[in-house]
């Protein structure tokens, strides 16, 4: 993971390391930290593809306000991954387009 090893002021206290998947591929991250941060630490920067122009999007504000980092998490689309805590075994998927809520997807 691309983590800061030494910092002159801060000490980082990470939680428990857990395994989750991105589009089926296993990755490691820290439980309780935002999904978007875990992805970035794994070198993943594209979180969704826009509906019309098919443009790649990553995160932008990281405080749950801008909608840029929406992904499909455990089947639920439009999850703000910058403020959603990572859990062991989470199934994270790149969101293509607007996403379908589970009811529509059935």
């Amino acid at each position, binding site marked *: *993971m*691309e*983590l*800061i*090893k*030494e*910092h*002159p*002021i*801060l000490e*980082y206290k*990470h939680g428990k390391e857990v395994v989750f998947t991105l589009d089926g591929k296993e990755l490691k991250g820290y439980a*309780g*930290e*935002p999904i978007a*941060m875990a992805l*970035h*630490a794994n070198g993943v*920067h*594209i*979180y969704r593809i*826009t509906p019309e122009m098919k*443009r*790649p*999007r*990553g*995160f*932008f*504000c*990281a*405080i*749950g*306000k*801008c909608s840029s980092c929406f992904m499909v*998490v455990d089947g*639920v689309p439009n*999850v703000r991954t*910058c*403020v*959603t*805590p990572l859990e062991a075994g989470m199934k994270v998927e790149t969101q293509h387009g607007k996403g379908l809520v589970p009811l529509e997807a059935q």
Partner: protein
Amino acid sequence: MRKTLETELLVIGGGAAGLCAAAEAAGAGVKTTVIESDLHPGGQLVKQTHKFFGSKDEYAGTRGYKISDILLDEIKGLGDKVEIKTNTTVTAYYPEEGIYTAMKGEDEYYRIKAKKTIVATGAQERLIPFPNNDLPGVYGAGAVQTLMNVYGVVPGKKVVMVGAGNIGLIVSYQLTQAGVEVAAVVEAMPRVGGYWVHAAKIRRLGIPILLQHTITEALGDQTITGAVIQPLNDKFERVGEPQKIDCDVICMAVGLTPTTELFWQAGCKMLFVPQLCGHVPFRDNTMRTSNPDIWVAGDASGIEEASAAMVEGRIAGFSAAKALGKNMEQTKFDEYWKRLEHLRAGEVGEKIRGGICQVLSAGWEA
């Protein structure tokens, strides 16, 4: 089945302003609930590694993230008077019923009924238009701080910083602390907008501050591989040769705008005030908006420093507690206003004072 949470005072936003508001009101005995959308309270304070300026009363000389700890300690000392709900976002206000809706995570929705509310929703990052500004790698300055200062994630290898205000300067310095190269700071204005001391720190590290320059394009197919910058003349027209800089992150520090959706939904009287960086609610000197049940504090009332947000939080918390029938010492209120005036004094406070006078109401009719 509808779950409704009832509380005396609802504080929306657990950052610098919201925590101070909650501490003040709960200190006077008000049952207070703080709703925070992030996974931890503290707002932008938790991302600040630098020592604050301002006045001793607002923790000058203390690093931002430690101020957050101090405020949380104060709140902890108030026992069960304050409940902080993290990972919870207020999604709407329904004025007909006086009800807020909130969601915890993605699946738990509920309603909140409060006697009084303090909206301390803070601000959001601005973006300027240029081709490819939507590509991954164009990040808000706050996002870069979150990555490196809260979660210890390396934001990138090489960064172009857009904006030489205090945030652009401070985050550039913080990037070097995290071991990330800052290629340049680009600023459209002919002068540095932030404090000289911050600018001097990054100049000493050899980072160029390119005044009268703008970003004209972000380069990259899927993610950022570079930035094109170009000099500007006094009329902000592009002149001279565009220059390509290799980078994988373009950090935007081009200002913030207040987060005000809830005021609009509540029918608060609003005004666009350029000096306060967007639409803001009118308020009286107790920070009460035109809606008698709603107060405002912090960046949601206009973009200013965290120190001012903390005092505004105190004033709003004090006033809401008073409106809830608590016996409040008026001298304390006067003292808070003295502190605010001190923070806004002189040349640096001129812009803020000019903005606030446009939305400060002498008082609301009962």
